[in-house]
């Protein structure tokens, strides 16, 4: 029973509780939409955080995997006439394979060189999606069929809420388990010092590749679901701007904190909706908030707040 009350398990339960209760407080489809987008972004960020926060490998190209997943679903259901669920799975496997192939050469790079490598990869994907007009519809985007499983068509926000909520919960659970497993410990040692990890017998490359593939697959799954949910996608989803947004979510929420990644995704997804009140000052305010938060909460929101709580408790 003591293991049950580990903070991680407690966190998972809290997340499940929030997902279960939240719909009561959402008055209409618009709120559902924002929360669904938060869920989709959070799922990507949970995976990305594994890569950035735990393995210490930055990726500035993850939107590429998200975009590929979205287009795999769109193209396979639309042009090839495949059922959505099959398209989603095939897309995820193909993108996982792609990530596996590029992982080894790319993850040899360190620090900012790795950032550049992943950035280049993302931009190449984005350019291809923009240019292959006959397949993707070009910059104007393409429509995506309604998601259906065995004849059950899913189009309303409420059902989507439960699907996305479920995916987020499962990915979080998997991620937390991965972190607590020997793999996770190996990963943290990679983050601490790759050389030291290698010397003590950790197969550094294998773990880095594993995490890279897991994060790419989660991004691809999120992309597929997003495509079916919104019913329309454009190559902007795979763009550099979106990649940066994802990294920002992870760092803002707090690196090496799975719940931090979720909080970061929630804040950065909801913020533009709150900032509409500022009209022309929207960008200014967004930039200022981003800078301010990172200056005053350097470790990100969640770790900084946990530290604060601990300090207050200790003072008592």
């Amino acid at each position, binding site marked *: 029973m003591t293991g049950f009350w580990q903070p991680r398990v407690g966190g998972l339960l809290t997340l499940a509780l929030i997902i279960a209760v939240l719909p009561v407080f959402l008055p*209409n489809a618009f709120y559902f939409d924002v929360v669904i987008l938060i869920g989709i972004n959070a799922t990507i960020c949970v995976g990305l955080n594994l890569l950035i926060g735990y393995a210490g490998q930055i990726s500035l190209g993850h939107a590429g995997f998200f975009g590929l997943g979205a287009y795999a679903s769109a193209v396979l259901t639309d042009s090839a006439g495949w059922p959505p669920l099959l398209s989603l799975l095939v897309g995820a496997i193909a993108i996982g394979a792609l990530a596996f192939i590029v992982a080894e050469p790319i993850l040899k790079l360190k620090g900012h060189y790795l950032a550049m490598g992943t950035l280049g990869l993302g931009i190449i994907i984005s350019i291809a999606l*923009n240019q292959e007009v006959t397949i993707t519809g*070009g*910059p104007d*985007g393409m429509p995506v069929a309604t998601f259906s499983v065995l004849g059950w068509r899913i189009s309303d926000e409420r059902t989507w809420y439960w699907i996305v909520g479920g995916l987020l919960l499962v990915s979080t659970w998997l991620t937390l388990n991965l972190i607590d497993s020997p793999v996770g410990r190996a990963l943290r040692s990679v983050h601490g010092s790759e050389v030291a990890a290698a010397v003590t017998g950790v197969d550094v490359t294998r773990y880095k590749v594993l995490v890279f593939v897991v994060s790419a697959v989660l991004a691809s799954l999120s992309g597929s679901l997003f495509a079916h949910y*919104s019913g329309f996608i*454009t190559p*902007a989803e795979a763009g550099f701007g979106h990649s940066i947004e994802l990294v920002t979510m992870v760092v803002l929420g707090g690196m090496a904190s799975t719940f931090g990644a979720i909080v970061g995704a929630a804040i950065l997804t909801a913020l*533009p909706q709150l900032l509409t009140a500022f009209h022309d000052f929207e*960008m200014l305010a967004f930039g200022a908030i981003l800078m301010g938060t990172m200056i005053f909460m350097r470790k990100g929101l969640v770790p900084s707040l946990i530290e604060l709580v601990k300090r207050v408790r200790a003072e008592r």
Partner: protein
Amino acid sequence: MRNHFRRNIATAAVAALTALGLAVGGTQAAEPIKIGSFLAVTGGASFLGDPEMKTLEMYVEKINESGGVLGRPVTLIAYDSATDAKKALTFVKRLIEQDQVDIIVGGTTTGETMAVIKEVEAAGMPFISLAGAGVIIDPVKKWVFKTPHTDRLAVDKVFRDMTARNLAKVGLFSGAGGFDQSCRKNALELAPTMGIEIVADETHGKGDTDMTPQLTKIKNTEGVEALLYCGFGAPTSIVAKNYKQLGMTIPHYQTHGSASAKFIEGAEGAAEGVRLPAAALLVVDQLSDDHPQKAVASAYKEAYEGRFKDSISTFGGHAYDGLYLAVEAIERAGSTDKEAVRAEIEKTDKFIGVDGIFTMSPEDHMGLDHDSFVMVEVENGTWKLLE
């Protein structure tokens, strides 16, 4: 437009009187009419979305100064969708569910518009799009209308002009954005049907600063007789400058994306001789006084340039037309009942707008005729009306 306003005021007065009569019993007399909008004010298409937003804001203000619509004030609820289809969809859900607007006029780009169609159709929300592609209204969607000429119409106009000058082999050059690529796609599709051969097809990237390699390639293409550039914003001027730099002499065409005084200014003399299709708005001073659009277009030009100290572009005009199509339909419907308003938009008959004269029908949700574009040429640093 003066006419237009007078009519507005008259209807407003009538409506106000009726409302006054009703108000004795009811309390909802002055409940505002909510017009929702989402525009690409920032991001890649801000060159289009910014004048659209300014136009909507200015004219909603003017409408309220002259007594509102149906005696009710008009509230504009507008969001910046930042040239992002995902944001556009969320904002449309917000407009429909949260703000409960009566009608939506917006959607700067084709991507943003296409992303929201499913939602507005499901909600039964009248929607007038300001984006260019034909797919928006073809096939016809019950609740979706649009104001601008389709991109295809622009390319059609250019090709007609080329044919008249015996130019058949065209070097095509386009930017990377949605507007640019839609124009390119239409050019590639239309060319064979109009006896035009595309002999070169080049593209430049977002934010490129020098296009001489692509233009060199077009210049050296065997038998090329004309250049058509598809794009908007700063690249239009860069292309004109690079064209001059390379000493190119083949006739140079651009599209309505370049129909802004900024293009001529930015090209610093290199825009001389460039031909493009544009709304009559651009050459309003040169229209004969009996041209049906003259009054509307010159009033718009005067109002916009006076207010913002900025030259007009074709794009702000789309917003003007969208707004007044909506307002007039609401006036004719006598209420903001969505089905009634939708039906009235569809019945729009000879509405004189900035983009042209609109006559809609259940089969045509744009309602612009081919004559609404005019060909213009840059001469002595300004636009000259051809034909």
